[in-house]
């Protein structure tokens, strides 16, 4: 430790520009690998979530990119009729979120309503930290509506409390009864962009039944349709629905089978992930080459210092240990910087009151951040190993007598 301290304070830091150069390069390598690792982990998490929905007999709706939603052809009567048709002929999962409303809470965040029907609720298997699961049997204008709240609302609205609020989709004053609290950082991945997620720490999950749907406005009807999934169905039924929607609403929807979805995911995700990995590897390679160059020029400048130490009793194995210690320190610094940057981003969602992105954790860091940081650490170790071994090889190739008189 004493020797390491001596080398760092008396030899390396004397040429602080080179140390700073190395920190910058390591930081760039870390940021790049972190971004790539988190993209991959997030995509993988999203993919896992999608897989629970993408089963045999399930057909997931997808608005055709060429379809034009003509406002005049879509009205509330038509969508009500559509949902009635759906109710009578299909088993379907409906979940629609993003309906923002103002509701007092200790973090002063806006609150998002998330409407979910029983089938979607069964598939999602939301985990609770307190209370009980939702029930879907209630009468809209008579009963209190049982709801789940996100972890961020649990203090203001504990289990058993009631919330009186104007529901954004029915525009009616409703009485909500908090039935349970969602686990922290409960999320939902976007179906066709699995690396993007909405976190429900400031959401209210409201169960929707047929009565509710019929009372709801156009927003929920159209929004719900975008991600609707037919369950226990077949291709013929899916085609019928497609034609029905096209005839009545003038919107073209595609209903893809499980196999079609799997094929699409494999082609699209794997292709994207392959490109991300290739870009990351190429950039990492360039950065590592620069880092090696930076270290080799440090050797050029410090060779006399190293070799004089070798003359008076430093062994190559100790020198190797010194370099590993030095890189351990540099890696710690860059990881701390990276941590600060991620924390700043995550905490920024809290400061910016981004209710669908604010997460719980140390400075808002969530599991995928920690896993990505671990991967970064692993990559750092490989980089450090490469640079240190090349450096020692280089130093060994310089005769001590030549180095001393450098």
């Amino acid at each position, binding site marked *: 430790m004493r020797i390491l301290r001596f080398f760092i304070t008396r030899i390396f830091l004397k*040429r602080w*520009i*080179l140390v*700073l*150069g190395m920190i*910058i*390069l390591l*930081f*760039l390598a870390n*940021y*790049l690998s972190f*971004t*790539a690792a988190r*993209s991959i982990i997030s*995509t993988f998490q999203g993919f896992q979530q999608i897989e629970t929905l993408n089963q045999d007999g399930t057909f997931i709706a997808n608005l055709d990119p060429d379809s034009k939603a003509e406002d005049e052809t879509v009205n509330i009567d038509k969508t009500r009729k559509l949902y009635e048709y759906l109710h009578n002929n299909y088993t379907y999962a409906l979940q629609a979120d993003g309906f923002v409303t103002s509701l007092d809470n200790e973090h002063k965040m806006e609150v998002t309503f998330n409407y979910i029907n029983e089938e979607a609720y069964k598939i999602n298997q939301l985990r609770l930290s307190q209370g009980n699961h939702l029930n879907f049997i209630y009468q809209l204008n008579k009963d209190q509506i049982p709801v789940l709240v996100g972890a961020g609302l649990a203090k203001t609205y504990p289990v058993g409390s009631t919330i009186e609020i104007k529901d954004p989709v029915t525009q009616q004053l409703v009485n909500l009864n908090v039935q349970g609290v969602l686990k922290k950082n409960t999320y939902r991945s*976007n179906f*066709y*962009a*699995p*690396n*993007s997620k909405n976190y429900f720490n400031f959401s209210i999950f409201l169960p929707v039944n047929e009565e509710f749907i019929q009372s709801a406005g156009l927003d929920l009807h159209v929004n719900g349709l975008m991600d609707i999934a037919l369950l226990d169905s077949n291709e013929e039924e899916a085609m019928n629905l497609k034609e029905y929607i096209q005839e009545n609403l003038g919107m073209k929807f595609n209903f893809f089978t499980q196999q079609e979805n799997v094929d699409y995911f494999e082609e*699209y*995700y794997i*292709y*994207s*992930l392959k*490109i*991300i990995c290739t*870009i990351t590897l190429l950039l990492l390679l*360039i950065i590592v080459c*620069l880092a090696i*160059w*930076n270290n080799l*020029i*440090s050797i*050029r*400048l410090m060779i006399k210092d190293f070799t004089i130490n070798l003359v008076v009793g430093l062994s190559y194995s100790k020198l190797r240990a010194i370099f590993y210690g030095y890189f351990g320190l540099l890696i710690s610094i860059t990881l701390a910087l990276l941590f600060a940057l991620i924390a700043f981003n995550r905490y920024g969602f809290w400061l910016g009151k981004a209710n669908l992105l604010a997460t719980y954790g140390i400075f808002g860091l969530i599991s995928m951040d920690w896993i990505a940081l671990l991967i970064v650490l692993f990559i750092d170790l490989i980089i450090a190993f490469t640079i240190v071994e090349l450096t020692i090889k280089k130093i060994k190739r310089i005769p001590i007598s030549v180095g001393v008189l450098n």
Partner: protein
Amino acid sequence: MKYSLFRFKDVFEAIAIYLICFASNLLFIYVQTVNLEVSFILESFIESITEYQLIITILLTFMIIVFHYQFLNRRKTEISCRILVGDTMLKIIIRYILNSLAVLGFSFLLSLSLNFYLDVNVTSNFYLVFIFMLYILSSAGLVKKE
């Protein structure tokens, strides 16, 4: 090269670093013009990098400071020797600045081929050239003898 402090290896190293900086800046600009909407995953990955484009590019330019620093440190003995045999510090500094600017100019011209290839505006790298010129001028203060 007779009067220059630069050897072929130094010129090569400097050009390589300049090109890395110019190319990364151009690629950042280029990927923002490419339509990546077909792949949301790729788009958000690229976005998370290009969001910090300026910071990343400027951090990369620090490698040029490293280059000049180590170069002038290694040339201290040579500078002493040149002064011993009749050169002057002022002349050495002027030659150093001119040579460095020549290397920068050559690298910039080389990088223009990438501009044309990627169809990116030729002025995109001007701010980097300006930064590098500042580096060269300030590094002239490091021209010292042993």
